[in-house]
Structures are given as C-alpha cells and as structure tokens.
C-alpha cells in the first residue's frame, strides 16, 4: 500500500471528501484462514444448478449444547440480508424449535427481492472458522412444518433448486432482519409488517402474525460473536475480463480488531438505516439508492432507455431481460456518495456482453450487469436502486460495519473499500 493511500484513508476517517477512481484491478491481499477468517469460494455451486457469481461459505450448525453437528457447504454469503437460513433438505440434524414467550413455535416469512422464504425458526449452535454463537435462531426454509400463510406473498424460494444454494448466510448491516417494527402487536393498523408467525398447530390458519421481541428475532450472527463482532470484510481476488471458473477468497470477521482486519487504505461511506448510499450515473440529475450486495450476481442499474445499453435476448425467457448485452465491453463509472453527503468516490466498472460471457465455462465475472427498475428517482422519495452486486467485489477488500457496533472509525453502519 502506498503512502498516498494511507493519507487518503486518514482524511476519510475525519469525514472529509476523498475523491478518486477505483477500478478493482485486483492488487488486494487476501487473508489466510485463521480463527477469524473463513474461506469463501465463487464456483458453479450445487450440482443441480449452475451458479453465476455465487459466493459461498461453509458453516457448521450443532444441536445446542451437544457435539451433534453438521457442516454445510455452499451457503450463499449475502451482504444484502440478515441472518442464517438453511434449506430444510440440506439439514440432517434435528434442531429444537425456537419459541415465543408463550411456548409457541415461531416461523417466518423472510422477504427477499426474488421472493419469500417460509419456514420454522430453530435454535442451533453456529460455528464458522473459529467463531461461534450458541443458541442462535435460524430459519429452516421449506421445512413443511407449517403451511405458507396467505399474507406471505411473492415467489416461494423454498428449495435448493430455487435458491441455487444450501442456505443463505445474511451478513448485511442490520442487527436483526426486522427490528423494532416486529415488536408491535400485529394488526391492520400496526407497524408490525407481519414477518414473524406464532404457530399453535400444523393446520392451515394456525400460524398467526406475532409480535417478537428484538432479542428473539433472526439476527446477524456476526454481532453475537464474543469477539470480532462489529462487521466483516469480503476479500476476493481480481479476475480476467473473460471471467474465471473458480475464485477463492476470504470472509474476515471483525473490523480493526486484529492485525488481519485493519481499516486502512480505504474510502469509508456511511450508510443510512436501510444500508444504502447514493450512486450517481453519468449525467443523471437524480442519484439512485446504491447498495453493495454479494447476493446479487451482477451490477444492476437503470435501464436500456437511460443507459443506451441493449439487454440480451434470451430465447428461454422471451419476455424477460435480465442482463445487458452490449456489442463490445464498455467501461463506465459512477459516483458514490455517503448518506451524509460528505464523502464521494468514483467507481469504475465494465459491462460485457452477457451472452458471450455465458458461452464460456466460467462462472465468475467482474463485468456482468443488467437493468434495474427503469425509471429515474422521484424527488418525492420513490427511487430506483443501483445494485453493486458481486462483480464490484472482485479485486477489492470490502468492509461492512454493522449498525450500532463500534469500530475505530466510528459506529456502523458503513461500507469501506
């Protein structure tokens, strides 16, 4: 690391603007596995689904207080959601129910952009690398213990084939997947969005929306570690423009808690309560809401009408355009600004022809992108998202600090890279 970058980081920590261009060339150093470092991999994933830009970790869950454990590989590392969720078919252990104060079994309708995850909550001792949380509530997706309630709407992501993984390790900036809203008594005029259900029997209709105290909700497991509990770093090496069949990386726990997770040489973006910052794309007056998400497999932004980049024509899904397909790879840049409007950083990225990328046997791509919802942001608050998915992470060490957790650079949430 150069002295110039050290100075930049120092300035940023004081909250002053530090512009610059970052192209993710891949000179980052990847931490070696140790107590607070888990190996992660971008590979094709489970045999039944060929994953593109899927980031996976291996986790261990145990029946609480026992040595009855199971190690589960290919769990999707997702910095866009909160909590550990395992697909029921991948779990052979019998984990005890997670109950409310009345002893009723709790279940959840987890909300994701691609759909919902329905299933009961169970308790497990959770281990990854040398870190551990005992008696952690996790969701067992699609366990058929309870029927899906009517108010749980969207696509049902209930199987390994639906998800392309054995589970989701949600490591975003939130402490819980709901928070204080879910502690309110449910009802039509309630703050409670109805994500959690208390189930009195397995019959249809016997799971009722429930108020669940924050301490009983599905948490970000990192925040419950005995140490290294203020955030994570995702470290992935840079890859060639044509992609790569396999990328090894590190998931580092803790920010500035050890020698291997120092917060230096990075630009720090403070985030709002929803984990977002502002992203401005060339020439557009209204910025989009930006977020960094390892669980998104591309960089998703704006639409063809705005960017002028054509989408692919996919014969299998005639009416659906998920990816951009420019004739030649194009180099772009967008300006990210923190939630306080004090720090800006330009990020360069490339968009290649997705069909050309997919015609290879590679599964990791740093230039895969597609359209997000088309309209530009509304001055009255409805906005579009600029989704910095996994391509953003290649060649970078990206820090995610959890809300309310202390670091030497201040309290989270923030993103730094």
């Amino acid at each position, binding site marked *: 690391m150069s002295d110039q970058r050290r100075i930049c980081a120092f300035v940023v920590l004081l909250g002053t603007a530090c512009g610059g261009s970052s192209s993710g060339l891949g000179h980052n150093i990847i931490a070696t596995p140790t107590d607070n470092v888990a190996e992660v991999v971008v590979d094709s994933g489970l045999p039944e689904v060929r994953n593109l830009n899927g980031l996976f970790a291996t986790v261990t869950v145990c029946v609480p207080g026992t040595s009855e454990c199971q190690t589960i590989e290919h769990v999707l590392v997702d910095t866009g959601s909160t909590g550990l969720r395992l697909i029921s078919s991948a779990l052979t252990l019998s984990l005890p129910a997670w109950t409310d104060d009345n002893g009723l079994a709790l279940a959840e309708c987890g909300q994701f952009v691609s759909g919902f995850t329905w299933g009961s909550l169970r308790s497990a001792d959770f281990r990854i690398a040398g870190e551990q949380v005992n008696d952690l509530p996790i969701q067992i997706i699609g366990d058929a213990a309870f029927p899906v309630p009517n108010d749980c709407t969207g*696509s049902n992501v209930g199987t390994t084939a639906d998800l392309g993984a054995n589970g989701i390790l949600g490591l975003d900036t*939130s402490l819980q997947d709901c928070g204080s809203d879910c502690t309110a008594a449910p009802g039509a005029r309630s703050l409670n*969005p109805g994500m959690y259900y208390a189930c009195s029997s397995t019959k249809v209709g016997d799971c009722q929306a429930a108020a669940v105290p924050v301490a009983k909700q599905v948490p970000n497991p990192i925040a419950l570690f005995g140490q290294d509990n203020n955030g994570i770093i995702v470290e992935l090496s840079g890859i060639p423009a044509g992609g790569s069949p396999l990328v090894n990386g590190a998931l580092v726990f803790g920010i500035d808690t050890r020698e291997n997770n120092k917060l230096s040489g990075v630009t720090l973006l403070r985030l709002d309560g929803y984990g977002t910052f502002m992203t401005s794309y060339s020439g557009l007056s209204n910025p989009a809401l930006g977020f960094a998400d390892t*669980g*998104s497999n591309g960089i998703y932004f704006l639409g063809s009408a705005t960017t002028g980049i054509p989408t692919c024509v996919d014969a*299998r899904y005639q009416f*659906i355009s998920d990816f951009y397909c420019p004739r030649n790879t194009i180099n772009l840049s967008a300006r990210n600004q923190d939630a306080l409007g004090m720090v800006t950083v330009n990020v360069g990225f490339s968009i290649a022809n997705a069909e050309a990328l997919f015609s290879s046997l590679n599964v990791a791509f740093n230039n895969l992108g597609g*359209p997000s*919802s*088309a309209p530009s942001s509304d001055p009255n608050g409805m906005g579009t998202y600029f989704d910095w998915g996994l391509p953003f992470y290649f060649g970078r060490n990206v820090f995610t600090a959890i809300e309310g957790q202390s670091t030497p650079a201040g309290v989270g949430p923030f993103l730094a890279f």
Partner: protein
Amino acid sequence: MQNIRSALTPFRRLSVLGALFALFLCARPARAALGGDASSVGTGQTHLLASARIVSAATHTMHELAAPTGTKVHEYVGNDGKVFAVSWQGAFRPNLRDLLGSYYETYLNAAGSRMVRGPLNIVLPGLVIHMSGHQRAFYGRAYLPDRVPQGLSTDEIR
C-alpha cells in the same frame, strides 16, 4: 377526507340509485388491485393504507398511500377509474396478492420459472413488473402497458 372524495369520482356520472348500488358493491372487501376499480383504493390491504397525497394530471390521478410500516404505495388511476399501474417502496414489501390482484398468478408463473439473484424484470405482452432493492429496502412497480393512457410516459410511473 381527500381519499373519500376521489374514491367517488368514477361514479359522478351515475344516477343516485346507481351510485348507491356502486357504494353497496364497494362495501364488500374489494381490493385496490392492478386492473381493478379505483373506488377501493387503500382498502382490502392486509395493512390499511392511508391516503397521503393525491396528484391529478390530465391523463390520470396518482394516489400516494402509506402503510403503517412506512411503506409507500402509488396507485395510478386512469380517467376510466381503473388502476393501470402500482408501485411501492419501503422496508417491507406490501402484500403482492392484494396489490397485483388478478395479475398475481401471472406474475408468479413468470417469476417462478427461473432463479433470480438480482432485480426482477418481467415484460409480458400485457404486464410489466420490475422489482429491486434488498431485504429491508424494497422497490417495485407493475403496470398494464395496454392501459397506460396516451401521453403518459411509463417512466412517470414510479
């Protein structure tokens, strides 16, 4: 009160009896769904939606509704009194069955046929749906391209 006044707008040209009959129909738990009547805007939702704002234009009326959870919903009503577009943003997604109405199954069939790990873009001949964001920050919009009034750009639906 604004929402009640506008809810009656489609019935202005009906006779008193007709209006009463229409109100009787509306008294059932009707849904303010895509393609449905505007008269039930804000009702029939799992979470009651309070009208926050109404913006009138030559081609349509936009009802901005707010759920107690803070999620905002926009419903675009054509001059024929039908909802031709809906959009939403907030920490929690609204009930899509309520919001998409008879188009809910079409959406499920289109979305369920593939694995999505990013925004959802569904473009069918009679239905366009976009969804983006992440957990605790959802955005989405759905519209009926054949029913979007002439002179209104779909970029205005947001």
